[in-house]
C-alpha cells in the first residue's frame, strides 16, 4: 500500500539493489582485470606513439607547432590557420572544450612537419572575439630556424594585446 516508503528505502540503498544477480566479487574481479587491460593498452600506446614519431617525424626533420593562450584570457579564439613555407598546413576551428583547455594552461599541438635544416617562413592567422564581442583577426610571421635537432615553436595568441607571439623552444 505505502510503496513510497519502500521506494525511498530502495532509492537510498540503490547501489546494493542488483547485488543478487551479479555478485560483488564478480564485479570486483572484472574491474581489476579491466584496470590491468587499460594499463597494458596505455603502455602499448606510449610505445606506438614513439615508434610513430620515429618513423614519421625523425628528429632531424621534425618541426612541431603548438598553440597556447595567455593565462586567464577572456578572448574567444575561434579559428587558427598555419602556413609553413607559404602553404597552408593546418587550419583548426576551436570547440568550447578546447578553448577552455587552452585557457586553463593547456597547449595544443596543432601541426607536426618534416622540414630540412635551414630557415622556413611561418605565417599564423587567427580569428576570434574579444570579451565585448568585437571580432578580432590578425596575422603574424616568423622564421623557423631548423637545425639538426627537432624544432618546437609555441604560438601564443593573445587576441587584443600583442595578438600573436612566437617562442622557439
Amino acid at each position: 500500500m505505502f510503496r513510497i516508503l519502500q521506494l525511498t528505502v530502495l532509492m537510498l540503498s540503490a547501489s546494493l539493489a542488483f547485488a543478487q544477480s551479479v555478485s560483488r566479487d564478480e564485479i570486483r574481479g572484472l574491474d581489476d582485470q579491466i584496470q590491468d587491460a587499460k594499463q597494458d593498452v596505455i603502455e602499448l600506446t606510449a610505445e606506438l606513439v614513439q615508434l610513430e614519431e620515429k618513423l614519421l617525424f625523425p628528429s632531424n626533420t621534425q618541426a612541431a607547432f603548438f598553440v597556447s593562450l595567455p593565462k586567464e584570457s577572456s578572448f574567444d579564439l575561434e579559428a587558427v590557420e598555419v602556413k609553413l613555407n607559404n602553404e597552408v598546413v593546418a587550419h583548426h576551428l576551436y570547440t568550447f572544450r578546447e578553448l577552455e583547455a587552452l585557457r586553463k594552461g593547456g597547449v595544443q599541438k596543432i601541426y607536426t612537419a618534416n622540414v630540412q635544416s635551414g630557415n622556413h617562413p611561418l605565417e599564423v592567422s587567427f580569428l576570434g572575439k574579444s570579451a565585448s564581442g568585437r571580432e578580432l583577426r590578425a596575422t603574424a610571421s616568423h622564421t623557423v630556424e631548423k637545425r639538426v635537432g627537432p624544432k618546437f615553436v609555441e604560438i601564443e595568441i593573445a587576441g587584443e594585446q600583442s595578438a600573436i607571439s612566437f617562442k622557439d623552444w
Partner: protein
Amino acid sequence: MVDRQVSATAVKKRAAGVLLRPLVGLVMPALLVAPWGVAKDRNEEALKDLFFGASMFEAHQERYFDAIVGLDTELDQYRRLDEPELDPFSAHFGQAQFSVGDLELSYRMHHEAGRAIEAVLKGNVPQPVKNEAAYRLAKIHYHKQQPRNALHALEMIEGRVPERVRPEEQFLRARVFMELGRFEEAVSLLRDLKGESRLEGFIEYNLGIALLKAGDAERGVAELTALGKRRSGDPAQQALSDKTNLLLGSYLMEAGELERARPYFDRVQLEGPFSNRALLGAGWVEARAGRYDRALVPWKLLQARQATNEAVQESMLAVPFAYGKLDVHSTAAVNYGFALDKFGREIDTLTASIISIREGKFLEALRRKEADQVKNWVVTLRDIPGAPETHYLLDLMASNDYQEFLRNYRDLNDLFERNESWLESLTAYEDLISLRRNYYEPLLPGLDQKFRQLDARIRMRMEERDKFAARIEQMLVTRRPEYLGRSEELESLEELRQLRARTRNQVVGEDSLRRLERLEGVLQFRLATEYDARLTEAYKRLQQLNVEIEKLQTVYQSYVRSRQAATHSYTGYDDTIRNVRARLQQSQDRLDMLMARQGKMLETLAIDELERRRAQLENYQIKARFALADSYDRANELQEQREDQRKVEALQKAAEIVIEDGGAEVAPEPESSTAPADGDPLPQQNPPELGVPAEGASAQEVEQ
C-alpha cells in the same frame, strides 16, 4: 531509511547530465571529484615544458587516456635522463606525478592511482605534499567503499593539508565517519565546515543526516528543513533541495507525522526529477490520513505523466483505490480499466525490450559514438530502431555501479577501436618502410661510392689545413720567415744558393759573388721585414679557411646524418613492428573477452530490471483485475441499494398519497433515469457519488 550521505560532485555531475534521473543518482557516494580542481590550482607557474602543456590540453578536455599516455611518456623519459634536474620538465615533475594519479582515478584505474599516490607517500617529499597524497588515497578508498582504509589514509595526515583541499578533506573525513557510524564526530566536523561555499548544500544535507542518525532528530529535521526551503537557479542545488524535501516527507510519514509530512512533499518542484515520487508521497500522506478526496489531487496529476515511471504506474492503481474508498466505484472501475490497458501495453513494451537486449541491440546502441555527444543519451537510445525502452532503465543506469559498468564498457570499446586503428597503422607503416627500402637500397651504393671519393678529398684538405694551422702556431713561437716566402721568392733563393754552391768550384769574379750575396740579402731582407705582415695575412687566411672548412664539415655532417636517416628510415623496424602487432592482437583478444563479460553484466542487470518491472506490472495487473471486478460488484451493489432505496421512497410516497387521498389510486413506480435497463452496472464518468466536497477539495488543491 535515512541511510547514506551525498557528495557534491555526484549531484553536479548528474544535474549536468541526466537531470531526470531519480533520487539514486544523488545519493551515491561517488568520489570522482573533479580532479582538475587541484591540478588547475597548481597551474599557476609558467609553462616550462611544451609536452607537459600538451598533455594538460588533453586532460582539461577529460580525454584521460591521451593525457595519461602523454604524461607517462614524459615521466618515463625524464626518469631515464642522466641529469634530470637540467631538463625543463623537472619544473613540472611533481605536478605531473600528481596529475597522473588524478587522471588514472578519473579513468577508473584506482589501482594505478593508489600505487602512484603511495609512491608519493613513501618518497622523500615535504609533509604538505604527503598530506595531500594521503587525502587523495583516502578518496580512492572511500570511492571503493572501504571507509576503514580511507580513515587509515586520513590518519596519515600530519598537520594541515594544503588550504585549497582542506574543506574537501574535512568533508571526506566527515563522510568516512558517517560510513563508520561515528555520527557525533561527523556532526562536529560538518558544523565547522558550514559556510564553505564550494560545498554549499552538501554540508547541510550530510549534517542533517548525521544528526538524524546520531539520534538528534529534531535538529536533523530542522537542518534539513532549512536546506529544503532553499530555492536555486542552479539545477544541482535545486535537485538537492527537492531530494531533501522528499526524504524528510518520507521520514515524517513513516514516523506517522502526517500533518508535518505533507508540506515537504509540496515543496518539491513539480517538474524536477523527484516530482513523481513527491506527488505519490503527497497522495499517500492524505490517503493515510483518510482524506482520499485530497489524495486524488496529486495522484491524478501523476497519472497523466510518463507511463513508464514507477510512481506513475503506482498512481494508476492508487487513483481508483481512492475512488473506491470514496465509494465512487464506477469511476474506480473506469480507472482500473484504464490502468489495465496501460499495464498491458507496458508489459508488451518490456517484453520487446528484453528481447531487444537479448539480441544485443542494447550493447550495440551503447557503443555508438553519439552516446558521447548527445545530452541525455540514455533516454535517446530508445529512438534507435530496435533498441530497448530506456525509460525503464533510467534508475538502474543512474546507479553508481551501473554507471561504472557503462563507462568501463565504453572505455573497453574505445581501447579496442584504438588498437584496431594502430593495427591498421602498422600495416601502413610496413608499406611505408617497404617503399623507402625500395627507393634507397638501389640508390645508396652509388651514393656511398661517390661519398667515399669525396670523403678522401675532404680528409686530404682537412689534413692540409691542420698542417697550416700547426705551422702558424709554430711561427708564433719561433720566427720562420722562409715559411712565409712566396713561391717565386723561395725559388729565387734556392737558385741563388745553387749558384753560390757552383761558384765554389769555379773561378768567378768578386763582383759576381757580391752580386749573388746582395741578391740573396735583398730577398732575406724582404722576408725578414715583411714577416709580421705576412704572418698576420697568413693568420687571416687561415681564419677564412676555417670558415670554409666549417661549412664543409656542416655539409659533411649533414650528408652523414641524411645517410644515416635514410638507413634508419627503413631498417630496424621489422622486429619492433612484429612485436607490437603480436601484443596488440593479444590485447584485442583480452579486450574482446572483457567487453563480452562487462557487456553480459550490463545486459543481465538491464534484463533483471526490466523483468522486475514486468513482474511488478503483472502483479499490478492481477490486483487491478480483482479490484475492477470488486468495483463492478460494489458499483452494482450500490446501484441496487439505490434502486431499492428509490423504490422504498416511491412506495412510501405512494403510501402517503394513499393515506392523504383516503385510499385513492396508488401512484405508479417512477422510472430511474440512471438505472440501466438490463441491470448491468456500467461505470459512469461523472458519477453522482463523487459529491461536491471531493470536487471542491480537488479544485482547491490544484489552485494551491
